[in-house]
């Protein structure tokens, strides 16, 4: 099969690049091996949350500081104007699928975590943060954090205790409540099947939503805000949110849960359906196992399911993620990139890959390991030659720490956008 562009990796970065390419008329395929990191994410889009362990409020101002100290940072290769453009593109594409992202007019806002900490982020789904929340924030007196009886993955009392310590909530009473709904529990066969995704499906039934709304209203007497784990449906979330708020006359917002992440799932679904809607080819459950190149140009890739049939393209984007996603592989005392055997940035000594403690202020070095690229995000092979028609995006890139800097999805989106831009302009030149 022949394509203009083949994207290896179907996470947030691969999908963003795919949508961009296919929108510009490129015959584009995405090869995805399975669930992406979106399923384990907060579902908010972080652009730049921290510098030197301090919270960043104005991410675009702070960008200069960051790229000033780390010259090879992927953001430095993108540039501020492109990052802004990429984020707007991403937002608009999500909106076509009814996932509306709130941006706090170029400022970071905070989302509440399951442990009650506040994480700076740039875009949140409207059920996580919105103008109403923002406006009512100063006058609120009481917040109720609710869990559903039998759900093991959330402890509202821990979240409440942590949240009340924060200066923002100094004048606010925060309490934890549990809603017991036997009718919901009956729907489960075994208690260990009562996961976020099972509960989200329960919310998809309108009749259940009214019952849930009544239970929430009872639990939240006198409160301004009600916080629940992110359960408000996988597909009809806007509608469910509206029904819950209008029936309870309360502001209701969601906290990202332990995986699977319903908030991440919504974005994943939106991007996938947008890509399909535009005519992209999404090859799921398959894995690229080898590539064929000549003269620093990749000719074709072969997958595990179709080892005999090459997939050919003029351009390739590698967005296979980090170790966790299989983009890089570590062994007893070395690391490699399995698809193109690209040059990696890493420390050869194994005992330098990690920090002395789990929670260490400088995070862990291995998170910064990855593929080395030129200014245009083209990678080097093991002989230090640039591969001419391959671009890299997202977590496989070296020289940034998504957790310490709070920039995982921002880098994924910006580098995907940049990689796609390069390919699109070359593609247009070729025609």
């Amino acid at each position: 099969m022949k394509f203009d562009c083949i994207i290896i990796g179907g996470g947030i970065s691969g999908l963003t690049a795919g949508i961009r390419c296919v929108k510009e008329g490129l015959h584009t395929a995405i090869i995805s091996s399975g669930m992406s990191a979106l399923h384990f994410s907060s579902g908010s889009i972080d652009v730049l949350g921290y510098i030197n362990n301090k919270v960043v409020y104005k991410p675009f101002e702070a960008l200069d500081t960051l790229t000033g100290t780390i010259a090879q940072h992927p953001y430095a290769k993108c540039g501020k104007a492109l990052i802004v453009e990429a984020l707007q593109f991403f937002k608009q594409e999500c909106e076509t699928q009814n996932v509306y992202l709130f941006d706090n007019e170029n400022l970071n806002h905070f989302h509440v975590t399951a442990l009650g900490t506040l994480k700076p982020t740039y875009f949140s789904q409207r059920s996580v943060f919105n103008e109403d929340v923002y406006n009512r924030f100063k006058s609120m007196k009481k917040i109720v954090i609710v869990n559903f009886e039998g759900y093991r993955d959330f402890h509202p009392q821990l979240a409440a205790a942590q949240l009340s310590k924060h200066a923002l909530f100094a004048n606010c009473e925060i309490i934890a409540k549990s809603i017991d709904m036997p009718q919901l529990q009956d729907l489960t066969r075994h208690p260990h099947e009562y996961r976020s995704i099972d509960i989200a499906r329960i919310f998809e039934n309108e009749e259940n939503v009214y019952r849930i709304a009544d239970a929430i209203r009872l639990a939240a007497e006198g409160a301004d805000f009600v916080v629940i784990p992110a359960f408000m449906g996988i597909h009809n979330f806007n509608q469910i949110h509206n029904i819950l708020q209008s029936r309870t006359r309360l502001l209701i917002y969601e906290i990202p849960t332990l995986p699977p992440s319903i908030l991440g799932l919504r974005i994943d679904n939106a991007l996938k359906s947008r890509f399909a809607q535009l005519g992209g080819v999404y090859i799921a459950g398959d894995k690229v196992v080898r590539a064929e190149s000549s003269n620093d140009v990749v000719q074709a890739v072969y997958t595990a399911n179709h080892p005999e049939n090459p997939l050919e393209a003029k351009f390739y984007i590698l967005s296979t993620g980090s170790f966790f996603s299989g983009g890089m592989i570590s062994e007893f005392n070395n690391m490699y990139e399995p698809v193109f055997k690209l040059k990696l940035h890493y420390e050869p000594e194994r005992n330098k890959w990690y920090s002395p403690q789990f929670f260490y202020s400088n995070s862990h070095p291995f998170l910064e390991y990855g593929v080395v690229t030129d200014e245009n995000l083209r990678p080097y092979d093991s002989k230090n030659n640039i591969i001419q028609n391959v671009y890299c995006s997202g977590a496989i890139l070296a020289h940034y720490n998504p957790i310490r800097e709070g920039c995982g999805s921002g880098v994924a989106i910006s580098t995907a956008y940049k990689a796609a831009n390069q390919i699109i302009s070359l593609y247009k030149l070729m025609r």
Partner: protein
Amino acid sequence: MRTIETEVIVIGGGATGCGVLRDCTLRGIKAVLIEKNDIASGTTGRNHGLLHSGARYAVKDLESATECINENRILKKIAWHCIEPTGGLFVTLPEDDPTYHNRLLESCKFAGIDAKEISVKKALATEPNLNPNILSAIWVPDGTIDPFRLASANILDSVERGATVLTHTEVERIMLKQNQVAGVQCYDKVAKEYFEVYAPIIVNASGVWGQHICQTAGIELKMFPSKGSMVIIDYRINNVVVNRCRVPSDGDIIVPGDTVSLIGTTSRKISYDKIDELVVDDDEIEVLLADGEKLIPNVSKARVLRAYCGVRPLVAVSGEMDGREISRGVVLIDHKERDNVQGLITIAGGKLMTYRLMAEMTTDLVAKKLGNTSRCLTHKIPLPGSEKRVGYTKKIKYFSGIPNSVVGSTHYRHGERVHNILSLQKRNYGLICECEMVTLGEVEYAIKNLKVKDLVDLRRRTRIGMGPCQGELCAYRAAGLFTEFGEFTPDTSTKLLKDFLEERFKGMKPVLWGDGLREFEFTYWIYQGLFGLGLVEEEEK
């Protein structure tokens, strides 16, 4: 200041200390056990969990071998719920001295160990993952034992019979009145308060830390700490214990344990001032994996879950000797005889396997000093959980409605006490740890009944967080239950969660490559990235 009065103070909550406490209690002697961390948190919890048949010692140390096989038989009766009688093999590799095989068989016969030669074909049928190039094999009645469960069952029984157990309590010093012990001064690390316990007899069962304890009474007792490191493979690659048939050396045993397998062990002399900050060295991992691979090929291709080490409490009774040379026999010291300090007894050396015998010897001496004439009963009375032996299938019928796997795991860990833990209420058997099938009910039971003061203690009682994911999801799930079922504030629960992750990380660090690194990246994403747990402390400052 708070004070407690009793007849006997036992210092150290390892297997031996717990055994002494139980033995005293069964003889009607009032006793208090003081442990600076948690039950089985020192050397007891840091071995490979082998239920020795004694064969390992038969060639060089007949006495130890005989002790082992006797205790092996006793423990199978009184503590069956802590034991898996897997059986074991001694296999000779092409590079090993082939004459050791016959020496081992002969020595086992002398020691009364039921060892028999089996054909290579039969050995491979018993253990299909075994190196097919072995030259010969001997079957021995080795097994596996869960040291946490064993120590905990001793404690549970003692407490139910009236003993007092103080964990996370440090003995600051032994108080003397002229040349007679008066008691100990302690510090409760959780409540952050000092108090004193008075008794005419003190048993120092604190293993390698016993040198320090003796020092507080002005007595010199020289310990020779020997470090042993082990690696854990993330699933059970063998059914039976696999020993290498040669003179004991590094990396010559692979022990199956619950859901995982362990490769043991190294032996390195370390200086006494390093016993609390032990680390596994990179080259030890290389040795263990390389030698493990010789017994079971492909071991090094499996995912390595953790590496950890413990300190053997070897005592120099006379003259200085090195790691594997120094006697591993039991050392019972009456300090009245040795140092003219009346009432102080040190019990050290020995092995996990002989903990009960060591406790019996110690308690005999305690009883003699107190004029108590009761006989030892610990070899006859089963531990809690092992009271009745009812088949697993019968249990599953009794708890119909609860998934068999859940009943099986709970029964496996707690024996007869499964009745105190599982109930047919749906919430009770909801799984908190899916790797090890730990239910909400089991967590509740442990927090309320088994002296659990943090998540690490909970792990020792239930195996929570010990499976392939190392606490990825269950650590958070369990943390909240401390607030729900115990007297823990939400802040404490959050702190326990953080401490637990740090504790787990210590054993992951030396083996962070391959899928171990992948799993760790995921865990780190969740707790630091998604939960912002690392931010908690900074905010509080």
